[in-house]
């Protein structure tokens, strides 16, 4: 009883503070600027000049230490730890943006410098090292182009879509509407997950192995004919199907059960309910998922190069002869230039121009997916 009284009296005599000391909001910024300045000074003294990576690393370290010291001395240790954690976590994000910006900048500057309408409309037909040497010597414009690669990319990706979208969407429908979480459904879900992890080059090897086995049976000794655009499309489908299934499945599960039940209650058969109610409700999600899948596989290189080779010329036929796509064109140009030595620069420039086109294509597809998801989304309730 007496102890109770004393504690109460103590509390009354010294009113509890509801707030603790806190640094002004501008403090972190001031500390950051100060540590950058210190880092620059150190860089001049110790490294004899302004060295961006050194300054960045030093500034980061000094900033972390300074923030901790300032905060610990004024606000207390716990707040200091919080501040330093915030600083570190924020800097991981900033650091991750560095390669992204560098990559996009390099692609736009290098590709933008090289690209021209001619590159987009010509193929590598009749390309000779001499032409590149003339270009590097400044006597001619950049020869060659990657029209054939653009055509190949579009054809192979379309063929892959034709194969994988029906399989992917139907599988997702099976999983959501029919499987009732039975054994087969669980097995498919698990294997789709596993399929997502198949290395792209293994998918390519599979398609090649499949078609060269078939070719060996049909025409012994002619395994070479297995390398076609269609083989590449099959390889891409192996990569694309699991993405389509996963995205579609996720969307279908979002369709409210009430809609299905309302339809059943009106006596609509199950298949018609799926086709007329479930799919239209989720069409925006499915389409945007498919677009994401296309964006993913359109940049694949490894499966194409083992299944469709490296074509130098235009080939519209998916079922015979080698084909080139933008990624394989980039790889081939960069690593096996038309002309060795200094004139390899010309091949490299073509590669960067193709990279710009490819990156732009992928970005547009990603953007399109977002737009589709927004525009076609079912109208919300009243």
């Amino acid at each position, binding site marked *: 009883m007496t102890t109770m009284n004393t504690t109460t009296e103590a509390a009354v005599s010294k009113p509890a503070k509801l707030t603790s000391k806190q640094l002004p909001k501008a403090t972190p910024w001031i500390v950051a600027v100060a540590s950058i300045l210190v880092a620059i000074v150190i860089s001049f003294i110790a490294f004899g000049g302004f060295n961006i990576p050194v300054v960045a690393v030093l500034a980061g370290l000094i900033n972390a230490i300074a923030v901790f010291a300032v905060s610990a001395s004024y606000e207390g240790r716990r707040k200091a730890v919080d501040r330093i954690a915030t600083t570190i976590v*924020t800097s991981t994000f900033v650091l*991750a943006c560095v390669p992204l910006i560098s*990559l996009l900048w390099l692609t736009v500057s290098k590709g933008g410098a090289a690209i021209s309408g001619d590159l987009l409309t010509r193929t590598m037909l009749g390309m000779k090292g001499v032409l590149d040497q003339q270009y590097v010597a400044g006597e001619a414009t950049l020869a060659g182009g990657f029209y054939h690669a653009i055509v190949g990319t579009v054809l192979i990706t379309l063929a892959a879509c034709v194969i994988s979208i029906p399989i992917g969407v139907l599988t997702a429908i*099976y999983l959501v509407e029919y499987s009732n979480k039975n054994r087969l*459904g669980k097995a498919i879900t698990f294997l789709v997950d596993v399929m997502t992890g198949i290395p792209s080059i293994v998918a390519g090897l*599979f398609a090649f192995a499949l078609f*060269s086995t078939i070719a060996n049976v049909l025409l012994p000794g002619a395994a070479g004919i297995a390398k076609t655009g269609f083989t590449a499309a099959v390889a891409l489908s192996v990569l694309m199907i699991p993405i389509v299934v996963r995205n579609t499945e996720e969307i279908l599960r979002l369709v409210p059960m009430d809609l299905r039940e309302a339809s059943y209650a009106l006596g609509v058969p*199950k298949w018609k309910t799926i086709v007329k109610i479930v799919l239209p409700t989720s069409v925006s999600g499915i389409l945007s998922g498919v677009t994401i899948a296309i964006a993913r596989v359109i940049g694949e290189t490894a499966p194409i190069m083992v299944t469709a*080779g490296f074509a130098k010329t235009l080939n519209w036929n998916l079922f015979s002869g080698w084909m080139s796509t933008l990624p394989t064109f980039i790889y081939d140009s960069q690593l096996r230039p038309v002309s060795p030595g200094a004139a390899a620069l010309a091949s490299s420039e073509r590669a*960067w121009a193709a990279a710009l086109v490819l990156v732009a294509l992928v970005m547009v597809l990603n953007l399109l997916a977002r737009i589709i998801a927004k525009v076609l989304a079912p109208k919300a309730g009243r």
Partner: protein
Amino acid sequence: MPISTQTTESGPTGPGSTPESGQKPPQSPATRQQKAVVRPGDRIFSAATLIAGILILVILAGVALFLLAQSKDTITAQISDPSQITGGKGFFSYVWPLVIGTLISAAIALIVATPFSLGIALFTTHMAPRKLAPVLGYVIDLLAAIPSVVYGLWGIALAGNLTGFYLWLSKWFGWIPIFAPAADGSVSQTGRTLLTASLVLSIMILPIITSLTREIFLQTPRLQEEAALALGATRWEMIRMAVLPFGKSGIVSATMLGLGRALGETMAVAMILSPGVLTASLVVSGNQTIASEIAQNFPEAAGLRLSELITVGLVLFVITLLVNMGARAIVARTSVKGS
């Protein structure tokens, strides 16, 4: 046309309680009859979806089977005369340096990428201004959208800038075997080493680990977070006490999925790395990964060499399969526990 009902509802006393009597309007929903009417359209449609599902099983089995079928030549050569295999010492002495190289590059990529991914995921879920967070998440997703061949091109263009850094590493940390310089004290002149390739790989797997951990962090029970804050925890203490323990298993499986991706990534390594024999040091040229070995040699390969490369691909397939299955098993185990 008779009005057909999916789940015919008819009371036991109601007239025409057989499913066929579709003309009858639904009776009072007192009792439900389980048996549904099956129409041809239903049969066809469900069969189509079932076939599509089974096709997935067939494809995955086909991947293993056809790779095995094409590996036949290698296996027979290995049994009859191992010296035919590249390297002249049989398949296993050919493949193990590749496996080690693959594991090393994937491990480095993972070690670099995981802390960054966790940081970015935390930043976008708990620290960034709420309105900005989705945009920032999209920026990181852009990293995933960029094709690997462009990463390769970028890596080649910038690899040379790393030689100074590698020289510095070998000077100060040369006593660690992985940073040891070559016998004459030099490092790779082009910078196209396994370390460069692994660093580029780490950037490529960063968005995958980030997006998976972000999902997990977003699922942290809000009440727990708010309870921690209400008890006076700072934001970091809240993250350490509520968010990270909740997401622990998710982080592990996200990292393993990133590992699976790093193991199978081909183009960046194939373009950046100038391959060579297996060496402990990562700042001199040398080493090779499975995927890159296939990509660099496949276009010219024929006969036994072709079969060898496909067999190597089978090895890669098995490794990534094990890693991915492990990751999924962790996810499955924890999701059962969590519910």
